[in-house]
């Protein structure tokens, strides 16, 4: 037991921090652009830097590291609110494909040359026709208009689609826009009766999302601290007022708790710990709630400027909400946790 980053892991985090800090200057331009992400940044971070394959086995073209390193990268991406298909394509599609053995496209996803997104459905969306699987579904999926592959995720079934319609929708979350997806066709590949593999892969995805939320929450706190040290009212920096200090202290209590939850879940994933599903549920709801709180407080503590379009605070706030529904809600993770720890009635 040694629950601290190794020097190698610290280096991964530091490298990612520098890269996403460089990207951050382009945030507004990317958000204002039509596509929602910057292709050059994507190729750089995912391909050249190798962050797309960091948790992918070497046999599939990855770096052969694991969930901890991916979480460290996601934390830094979250800190810059990096607008990109990181979570759907790298964080979710890759573990789903690896977990279900549909690994053909993994190398292309890992090096960023292809992008995947996911659509959650019930198993009824899948029907057998002429020996193959036909999928019929509609819904919202992040970056679907930029995606090469669409993963259709049911409770026990998973399909890979290459033919689907995607219409970009004006989205609350400006840094991870949704598109309206319509699917009605034959799947390129399908697995059936894969409930446990899908559940485990989604838990891994939720941990990566949680890491990204943690990074955003920590950034929201850091930027709020910086602002309140500078902004003077009533003859002193507003960060010297106890009510504001205590609010920021509470933000930090929340981010440190979320950091513990996220790192623990990532380590549990890496070690295939039997408590991983629990840890993933805890990390997921804790990190999302922490981001929502910190983003809301960021607006509040910035005062008037905090609710202007020009200030980034609302981008954090919007991201928090987008994250809260992307891979299931915090409430759903709490309900799942309740089941895992035996909090059912009269079960004693």
């Amino acid at each position: 037991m040694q629950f601290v980053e190794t020097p190698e892991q610290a280096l991964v985090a530091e490298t990612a921090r520098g890269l996403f800090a460089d990207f951050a200057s382009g945030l507004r331009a990317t958000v204002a652009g039509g596509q929602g992400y910057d292709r050059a940044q994507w190729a750089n971070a995912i391909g050249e830097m190798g962050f797309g394959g960091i948790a992918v086995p070497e046999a599939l073209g990855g770096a052969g590291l694991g969930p901890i390193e991916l979480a460290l990268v996601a934390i830094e991406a979250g800190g810059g609110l990096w607008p990109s298909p990181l979570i759907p394509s790298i964080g979710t599609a890759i573990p789903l494909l690896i977990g279900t053995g549909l690994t053909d496209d993994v190398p292309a996803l890992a090096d960023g040359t292809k992008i995947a997104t996911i659509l959650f459905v019930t198993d009824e969306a899948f029907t057998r026709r002429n020996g193959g699987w036909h999928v019929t579904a509609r819904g919202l999926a992040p970056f679907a208009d930029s995606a090469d592959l669409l993963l259709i995720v049911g409770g026990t079934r998973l399909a890979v689609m290459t033919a689907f319609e995607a219409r970009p929708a004006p989205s609350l979350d400006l840094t991870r826009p949704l598109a309206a997806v319509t699917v009605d066709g034959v799947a390129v590949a399908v697995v059936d009766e894969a409930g446990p593999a899908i559940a485990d892969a989604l838990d891994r995805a939720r941990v990566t999302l949680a890491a990204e939320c943690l990074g955003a929450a920590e950034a929201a706190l850091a930027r709020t601290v910086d602002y309140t040290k500078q902004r003077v009212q009533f003859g002193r920096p507003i960060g010297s007022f106890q009510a504001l200090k205590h609010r920021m202290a509470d933000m930090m209590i929340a981010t440190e708790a979320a950091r513990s939850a996220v790192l623990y879940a990532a380590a549990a994933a890496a070690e295939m710990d039997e408590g991983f599903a629990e840890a993933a549920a805890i990390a997921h709801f804790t990190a999302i709630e922490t981001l929502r709180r910190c983003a809301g407080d960021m607006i509040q503590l910035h005062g008037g400027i905090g609710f202007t379009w020009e200030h980034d605070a609302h981008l954090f706030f919007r991201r928090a909400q987008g994250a809260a529904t992307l891979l299931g809600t915090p409430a759903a993770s709490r309900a799942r946790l309740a089941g895992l720890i035996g909090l059912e009635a009269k079960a004693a």
Partner: protein
Amino acid sequence: MRLGFTHEQECFRAEVVDWLETQLSGRFAKLRHLKSQSAFPEERRAWERTLAADGWSVIGWPKAYGGRDASLAEQVIFAEEYARAGAPGRMSHIGVELLGPTLIHFASDEQKARFLPGIASGEEYWAQGYSEPNAGSDLGSLRTRATLEGDEWVIDGQKIWTSLAQHADWIFVLARTEPGSRGSKGLSFLLVPLRQPGITLRPIRQMNGEAEFNETFFDGARTAAANVVGGVGNGWAVAMGLLMTERGVSTLGQQMGFIADYDAIVAVARANGTIDDPAIRDRLTRAYAGLRIMRATALRILSADQLPRAALTQKVHWASWYRDLGELAMDVAGQSGEVGGAGDEPLSRMADLFLSTRAATIYGGTNQIQRNIIAERALGLPREPKG
């Protein structure tokens, strides 16, 4: 202590309902249930003039200034029926609710004669010029200055969060008229024509994409020497009096708007089944209780002879309630509420509530400033040491 209305008051209500229904089914139908504060400016001016023509524009003002001297009960009835009918937000709000009562209390007879009729008749519209970029919560740090040159004040500086300025004719400005003065001393309350070369407006886009507020730049702007209210150097007292009038009958109308928001959320919850979620149902129940309590508090305040301590708690209470409502709206809507609708709205009403309600705990005095006020003025707790 009595909640109910007399027969006479119920007759008044019927008159109000009838008038509103007639107008809003007829030529003003397009203004009904309008959310935007900026759409249809011409129709809204016409609406204000029609209200005035039939004696409904300033019912709480004294008869001498064009009002009806309406009783508390009548004002409550009017405010609630106005909102219930879906009548539009008052473009004259700042003049009718804020400046008018301030002028009635502080202004000279000449000033009253010059400015009150324009407000009452819906001919002149007002904007508010208080906050500055470096004086948000801390009004004592105002830097906008006005200098008397001959028979005119010349004004230089910058105001921010000027609401509705794009539709206004005049602006009231708290400016420093005593060079070198600090804090609340040396300020004057000036009435300034807004449409003049010395004034430039720049809209501020809010996080929900709307632009209700402006930055207002004064660069040698001018107004007559006589347009100072309450005397030169006495602007702080006038401004504080004005801020107190914000807690008037208009809160009841505001609350009716909250009811419409609440109803919209309940409708979504029913439609998408989240009302079956016990946690959501409990939050909706609490939201409803909050509405009822805010109404009762408003009635307590309006019924009292003097502004009671409870009045100081109103702003944080409603603002926090409203912010929570915005979060509830989004949790009810779920992911499908995070994208634009089929119509011309860029986002769903739930998403807009989620975003727009975040401003409630900030504008008009942040929750932090309000809590200071409650602690010091209502509870008598000691001030903090100065920095």
